């Protein structure tokens, strides 16, 4: 699917980089813990999170993630959005909660891919409603 499809499926508001809506994505992960994203994620293109600080964008940058979806209607402040714009990382915001958002995307074909070392999120200490879209 494309980032544009995610926008439609989750009824997202696009906060930056709408020129990226055509970009293809196949894998995603969801977490409020950037430590876990850094440790367990591999080759995922989309990050779903409820965390709002600039380190979400930096973590995405390091992991070559090209789209961040903020769940539960959260919207990062302008500084975070402009940082993402600089890095060409699309920022979407959805009213859906983490579990629902992951479920909708999974149902539509997005997958968790293979996390490094074969360790899924459950071993990574998921927070609250965080869930990797894992096989």
């Amino acid at each position: 699917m494309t980032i544009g499809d995610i926008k439609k499926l989750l009824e997202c508001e696009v906060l930056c980089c709408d020129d990226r809506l055509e970009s293809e994505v196949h894998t995603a992960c969801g977490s409020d813990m950037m430590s876990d994203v850094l440790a367990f994620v591999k080759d995922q293109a989309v990050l779903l999170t409820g965390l709002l600080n600039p380190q979400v964008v930096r973590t995405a940058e390091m992991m070559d993630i090209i789209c961040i979806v903020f769940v539960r209607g959260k919207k990062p402040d302008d500084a975070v959005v402009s940082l993402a714009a600089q890095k060409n990382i699309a920022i979407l915001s959805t009213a859906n909660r983490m579990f629902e958002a992951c479920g909708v995307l999974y149902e539509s074909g997005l997958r968790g891919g293979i996390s490094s070392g074969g360790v899924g999120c459950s071993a990574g200490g998921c927070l609250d409603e965080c869930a990797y879209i894992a096989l």
Partner: protein
Amino acid sequence: MSALTLHYDVPGDDFTRAGEASSDIKNKLKQMGISPDVIRNVAIATYEGEINMVIHANGGTIDAAIDAESITLTIKDTGGGIPDVELAMQEGYTTAQEHIRALGFGAGMGLPNMKKYTDEFNITSEVGKGTEVIMKVYLSK
């Protein structure tokens, strides 16, 4: 390829800026045409180290040296140091409090992750003096 060195001072009092050095290193390596896999490994290792310096010490310095064979990363601070390095290297070990976890860090995965993503990893730390991590990532495997 001639050796290239990069130096960064990482401020310890501004969490929002943590990662700027790692980001710059990543961009420079990209411009140099280094392979994406190598860049990813370097990016993760430096970023974890940079975050550690901001969260657990009062900032510090990052030096990157790139030559024909490898990238050497030196991450050094003059913070409180680590009393038991062997323990700190274990997955899941953390001294981070709730306010750090609220920022999305403090899973005790950073140091093991740095070791995992680099070809050589060395850490020395002295309580009251500081911590130095030296890592190498080979350009071809």
